[in-house]
């Protein structure tokens, strides 16, 4: 039995009268690739931001990487990586400068950063782009870079918010290879996605509907439960119940 790196119960976030996340309870085990599914507006991003310590829960409790999400949110941040839905590296910094900045923020030394940067650019086949201003990179490359920066400091957990949104199928495939590599290194991956084929790549998936988690299991088990041939069908059966639109 592997240790739980994320454990939350009754996690809730309200914006005024609107309940974005409604008492969700789940856990994520170490080294797992955990898929966090849901229609637009189901509350995935909000839930993820509470786990990352950038959104204050209205109610509920939990731990991430062993730290309390309410009181120890700054400690959590030392142990996680985060890639937001909207590309949010600095467009006016070069590739190596973005890597260096975030490496530095996480406390890596100049020397370690330099060595790791070389290795990373080599691995990504980005050597030529080292001095390219990030705004000039194509979207797929940007996403790869953002993911690499998110795990540059070797966090325990990496949170990916729709990392493959708007990216072509070939690039998506490469991206998932990177996710697997990270998981092999022992990084727990918490990923939200819209693509149901990607859900199949996850060890376990949860499906959010209207702020609640309506299903949570391995893809195979979910298909069996819902008597469906694919995750796509599972998702459609659940999403039909949703009252919130886009």
């Amino acid at each position: 039995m592997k240790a739980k790196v994320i454990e939350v119960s009754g996690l809730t976030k309200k914006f005024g009268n609107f309940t974005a996340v409604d008492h969700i309870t789940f856990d994520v085990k170490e080294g797992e690739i955990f898929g966090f599914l849901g229609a637009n507006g189901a509350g995935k991003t909000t839930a993820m931001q509470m786990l990352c310590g950038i959104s204050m829960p209205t109610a509920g409790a939990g731990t991430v990487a062993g730290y309390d999400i309410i009181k120890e949110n700054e400690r959590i941040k030392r142990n996680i990586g985060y890639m937001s839905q909207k590309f949010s590296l600095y467009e006016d910094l070069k590739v190596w400068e973005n890597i260096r900045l975030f490496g530095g923020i996480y406390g890596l030394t100049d020397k370690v950063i330099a060595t790791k940067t070389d290795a990373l650019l080599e691995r990504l086949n980005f050597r030529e782009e080292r001095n390219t201003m990030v705004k000039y990179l194509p979207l797929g490359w940007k996403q790869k870079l953002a993911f690499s920066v998110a795990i540059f400091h070797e966090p325990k957990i990496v949170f990916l918010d729709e990392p493959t949104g708007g990216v072509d199928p070939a690039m998506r495939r490469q991206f998932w290879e990177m996710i697997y590599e990270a998981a092999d290194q022992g990084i727990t991956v918490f990923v939200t996605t819209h693509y149901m084929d990607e859900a199949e790549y996850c060890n376990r998936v949860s499906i959010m509907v209207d702020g609640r988690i309506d299903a949570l299991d391995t893809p195979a088990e979910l298909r069996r439960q819902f008597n469906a041939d694919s995750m796509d069908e599972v998702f459609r059966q659940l999403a039909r119940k949703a009252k919130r639109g886009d």
Partner: protein
Amino acid sequence: MKTLKFLIEKEFKQMFRNPLIPRMIVMYPIMVLLVFPWAVSFEIKNIRIDVVDHSKSTYSKRLTDKIEASGYFILNDTPPDYRTAMLNMEHNETDMILEIPSSFDTDMVKNRTSGVGMAVNSVNGTMGLLGSNYITQIVNDFSSELRSELMHTLPPQSRASIKRMAQIDIVPQYKFNPSLDYKNFMIPGFMVLLLTLICGILPALNIVMEKENGTIQQINVTPVSRIHFILAKLIPFWVVGLVVMIISVSAAYLLYGLWPVGSVLAVLFSAIVFILSISGLGLIISNYSETMQQASFLVMFFILILILLGGMFTPVSSMPSWAQLIAAINPFSYLADTFRMLYLNGSKLADVTGNLLAMGVIAVILNGWAVFSYKKRG
């Protein structure tokens, strides 16, 4: 502390890559100091005057010439009577009327005293006040000039009587800015204005820009401390402000020959303390704003208050007490005062310690607030 190095490095790179900001930092002070000191002045010149000369004597002619030669007045007309002059004023052809009585010369010689009549169009209050002051000064000047001349023409026994009846003249002595050059007075003020605009607006737009770009989220999710983040935003503007000051002080010297009578280092040092406070204000505004539009609107509003209640254009001492209260917490008024003391009075650093202390306290409070209002968790 190591984190700070990386953050500051990033801020400088972004600043220098901005197509406008580096140029603005250089051009702004030069343009402002090149243009404004000539245009923004409370000195009133070219006041149009009608002289109604009933005396038509040598003395009255001399007085008229003297008024014209002062440089403040333009002789519009010499109408035969007051009524015509008044019509001129009504038609807005003249601003002032000076009426010289027919007995002017005889009064001057025999009675050693005389009166002239004066009418001023006070629609423009400042001009009315200053215009009449100028005339009074010129007439006083003229009369003492005449008296000393008459002294020499009179037989010695009569001189004593004139001495006895010597009238009391008010002779103002203008200290510290002897030429009464308005530019000298305004230039230190413009330097404060420059620092306020550049080091107030840029930080105000900075954090909010990261919010609009979404990059702040990537920062918020890291363990970076709030103090480091704010310091990294603050320090680059400190450097920018210092550069602006060095350019301004040099420009003031090269363009106008104006150099601080006191210590130039004290000028730079007090600027540094001021920049911290004004940039702190900018960062607070940025923290509370969600969009650039909100931030620019807010920062303009506050800067306007700082400037207009800061004693640059109108002295703080003549403001109502509530406005003086605002001036007491206005870093602008402290620096404007400090710069004028250092530039014109020749004060030393020790003389402006009080102002520096006040600005220091304001800076600490504002930046503490900036750290506090930067929320990493929404």
